[in-house]
């Protein structure tokens, strides 16, 4: 399993979630009015606030892109993980786990850059690239999660007369849920980052002001986009941390 964030799962930081979420919403709504602040911070800029798109619009675009691609990833990834751990798919398991391990070494930006042009520029290709890359940790963790279910538990379930489907939905998936959620968490966080770069392949996101700021050497644009997307990622991560804890078997 990818435990890249599993250590922090036990940390008592969820108390910050509502405050940071509120801060994120407030900044999204009022970033457009922040001109005086940025004028004071970075004097001498022609245009202290990014105004080609409104910030709520950019946030919405970003969230839609990540949410849509993540939904696709979760659907395909969890199905593939279940398939590989059933007896029908057993033969495919080594290749699926090797691909999901090797695939994750590919730089996400490179995957975006290779996939997107093949499908043209804009929202759809970015969606495809994000969904593809986001699959990998979910597949990996679904397989790992299902495999950690103790064989004694499965035997007991069989012994009590549960059907294969019932064993999957009532025993295996609930027990594997924490690990699967950890995979989704990695996937979503990576996708929030990759969606930021997706503005270079023509998909509008919170990366748009950052890239535009870098191109026109307007540090204020960069900061405005970066602050919002950083907060979005942190809030999402904390949310998933809570979710993971909710799904952990001992619920402590």
């Amino acid at each position, binding site marked *: 399993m990818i435990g*890249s*964030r599993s*250590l*922090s799962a*036990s*940390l*008592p*930081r969820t108390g910050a979630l509502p405050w940071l979420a509120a801060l994120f919403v407030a900044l999204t709504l009022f970033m457009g009015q922040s001109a005086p602040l940025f004028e004071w911070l*970075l004097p001498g800029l022609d245009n202290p606030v990014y105004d080609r798109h409104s910030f709520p619009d950019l946030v919405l675009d970003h969230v839609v892109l990540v949410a849509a691609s993540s939904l696709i990833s979760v659907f395909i990834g969890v199905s593939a993980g279940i398939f590989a751990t059933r007896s029908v798919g057993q*033969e*495919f398991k*080594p*290749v699926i786990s*090797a*691909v999901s391990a*090797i695939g994750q*070494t*590919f*730089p*996400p*930006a*490179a*995957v975006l*850059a*290779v996939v*997107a*042009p*093949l499908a043209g*520029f804009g929202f759809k290709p970015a969606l495809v690239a994000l969904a593809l890359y986001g699959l990998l940790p979910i597949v990996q963790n679904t397989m790992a999660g299902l495999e950690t279910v103790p064989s004694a538990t499965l035997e007991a379930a069989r012994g009590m007369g549960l059907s294969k489907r019932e064993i999957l939905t009532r025993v295996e998936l609930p027990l594997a849920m924490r690990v699967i959620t950890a995979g989704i968490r990695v996937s979503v*966080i990576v996708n*929030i*980052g*990759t969606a*930021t*770069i997706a503005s*270079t*392949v023509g998909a509008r996101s919170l*990366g748009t002001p*950052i*890239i535009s*700021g*870098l191109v026109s050497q307007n*540090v204020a644009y*960069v*900061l405005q*986009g*970066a*602050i919002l*997307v*950083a907060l979005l*990622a*942190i809030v999402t*991560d904390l949310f998933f941390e809570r979710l993971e804890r909710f799904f952990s078997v001992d619920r402590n």
Partner: protein
Amino acid sequence: MKPNRVIVTLLVLALAATLLLPFANLAENRLVSGTPYRFWSALTTGQLVAALALTVSLTGMAVSWYKRPVLNGNATLVCCLCLLLLVIYAAGDFATRSLEDAGPAARVSLSSAFWAQIFCLSLMMIDVLQRMTRSIFMQVFFALFAFAAVMLLFFSGALDQLSIMREYANRQEAFAGALVQHMMLVISALGPALVIGVPLGLLALRRLRLRSGLFSTLNVFQTVPSIALFGLLVAPLSALGEAVPLFRDLGIRGIGSTPAIIALVLYALLPIARNTYAGFAQVPTAAIEAAQGMGMTPQQILWRIEVPLALPVLLSGLRIVVVQSIGLAVVAALIGAGGLGTFVFNGLGQYAIDLVLLGAIPTIILAVLADCLLQLLVSLSRRKGVT
């Protein structure tokens, strides 16, 4: 007769792609969309016959797989590698033949069927390798061998007329520079990351109360999207550079390699600190007590017991960091740090896919190679007795 269903499935997929999708694209110049060529019209008769023969024998072996799994395994590896080299060579050969009587701006680029074939063949080889050996050494050895064979094909000149290779030929020097710069970014981040990360991990080990706070702080860096972290560093660093001319002369500016390296270091801290902590924490306390009881000095316990037992975990942390940094350094091109990402984003800006590939494919290869080598190192460091 029990077939190898993985290979059969992949063969079906590859055949479907070959039949339905274009193999290569011939265009008058960079701007027009050009004519797509199917696999069978791009290859010479001889090449087609060879490809067909290899495919038929692959199918035969896959269908009767479990009769002679070892023989079939070896033969399938050889067939797949031959077919892979044949497909790549045929693409290059097609480019050479079709550009002989075309204008200087004409170009042949690779299309979806080509990529699908390469993808399916690689997966077949991975499947066979996974079935045949659990040994990471054998797997990496074969991967390096296959990689060397493909590289040989590249340097033989047979592929020189493909658009991506022409793009490479035009920018050979810039490419070499970008490659070196890319690796420099990664390497320069490693030193500081280790110097800061390892002590932080040890601190977490000694002071349990600090641990949760430390790891969640470092996790924030991992969570923040790379371009945002770069962006957040741009402002304070440019302010610093402007305020102190000395720093500016040292290269501390808002854009360039400095913010990139700082960001890479910040990203690397969590994996390094966490794996240092985990590596030392998993050393059995009984072993340490026994070592003390037998009269080993703290130094001897550290170097003979703790470090050897923690090393594999430490090195897997390093592996994560190197692979991750190679990927993040692509994005660093956006803040002017150079590296292979320059080609990627220039290409995206000009809608020049070959230029994008010239940046993206080498970074992917670089990441996978680094991963292979470091994985090998991890296995080597794992002592025999420790499972």
